[in-house]
């Protein structure tokens, strides 16, 4: 009985993971572009990126999710709730990822760009070969935090009827009258997922860490 119970919720895990796997990379891509616009774009491009970030981070994710959902599964574009929800979460996350990457790009420092230009690299080459590889390393720890937020926020697509972990827990709670067990199991699965993601990224940070001081 308990194992059946658990496996029903567990089936939602693949949906949760899938939503995250769409939302996180999409958010990374948009966030990186925006961070580059912010740091290296001209005045107006940079302003535009800043306003985007300000607005997206100033509205509750659930409200944005509904707005984007109705845009993405409306008359013009008609995506399934899964895709509309995942893409919306990616767009919401992009503003936070932009902030992380913008800080990391800035932390790399103006001098690295100067040195790259001095050997004859174009701006784009300098960004690609010199700035981004260093910024990504700096961004891993705060990005790990954002990854766990997206993982947990993926539960918001529950509101669109996507059968992820939380929605299944809700259904079980209603049919079995065992809310503690149902939501407890959901919480445990989330915790394990977040833990794995954070550990994985810690390892990545460790692996890509640059050697410091002289041995």
């Amino acid at each position, binding site marked *: 009985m308990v194992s059946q119970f658990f496996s029903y919720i567990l089936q939602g895990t693949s949906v949760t993971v899938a939503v995250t796997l769409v939302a996180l990379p999409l958010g990374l891509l948009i966030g990186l572009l925006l961070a580059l616009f912010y740091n290296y774009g001209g005045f107006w491009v940079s302003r535009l990126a800043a306003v985007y970030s300000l607005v997206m981070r100033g509205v509750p994710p659930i409200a944005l999710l509904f707005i984007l959902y109705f845009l993405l599964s409306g008359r013009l574009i008609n995506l399934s709730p899964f895709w509309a929800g995942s893409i919306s979460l990616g767009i919401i996350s992009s503003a936070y990822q932009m902030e992380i990457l913008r800080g990391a790009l800035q932390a790399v420092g103006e*001098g*690295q760009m*100067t*040195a*790259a*230009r*001095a*050997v*004859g*690299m*174009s701006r784009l*080459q300098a960004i690609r*070969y*010199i700035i981004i*590889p*260093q910024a990504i*390393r700096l961004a891993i720890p705060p990005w790990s935090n954002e990854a766990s937020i997206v993982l947990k926020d993926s539960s918001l697509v529950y509101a669109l009827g996507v059968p992820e972990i939380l929605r299944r827990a809700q259904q079980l709670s209603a049919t079995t009258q065992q809310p503690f067990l149902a939501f407890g199991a959901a919480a445990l699965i989330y915790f394990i997922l977040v833990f794995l993601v954070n550990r994985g990224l810690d390892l990545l940070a460790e692996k890509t860490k*640059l*050697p*410091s*001081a*002289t*041995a």
Partner: protein
Amino acid sequence: MINPTYILQAKNLTKIYGENVIFQDVSLDVHKGETIVIIGPSGTGKSTLLRCLNLLTPLNSGQIFLEGQEITAQGVDADQVRQKIGMVFQNFLLFNHLTALGNVMIGLTKVKKMPTEKARQKALYELERVGLLDRADHYPAQLSGGQQQRVAIARALAMDPLVMLFDEPTSALDPELIGEVLGVMEQLAREHMTMLVVTHEMGFAREVADRIIFMEKGRIVEQGSPEDLFERPQHARTREFLGKISELYGKKAK
């Protein structure tokens, strides 16, 4: 007409930041193989001048010619010009995520599009030139300041530049590390590399320079051979500056 014996020629360069005239009407002729040392008080525009010469900073007016070609002309690809002008910075500015070898190679592979193996050989040769072959796989953080600066010199040399610009290459170094960097520069001068060196190292200026330029407040006050400048300075300001500098650095240099 442009005199072809000049490898680098600057005509009436003017640079203005906002309301501040950094330098005005600065002209400079550099012969092939010449070592020029630029001295002058800080804030005088020496760094800005070097940055303008390799087009890292735009000028307000004036022309620069490299091997007789105007590089300040409309439509000149500044990235290509910079490949031909090496630059060494006060704070080294090595690429932190790359080893010494990687630092020297990246301009060859990404800018010159040289095949990896050929680039590696060339980079190793340049590291050997600055005496750091045994540090090829060290990251900048694992190198001393003097070693980092020598890698930075190798990185610039790898591009086979026509001219090397040095902006106070030893100012950020502990005194005991200055010699190894000056040694490499001296060797380059002997090999007839064309060099423009901003420095406070008067020993180096006296021994290595073909010509010394004294700059102050955005103007070239005086220039001449080391003997002329050190023994018979024409301007009171030059004498004053040399006096001050030998007070500050004189003891250290010996």
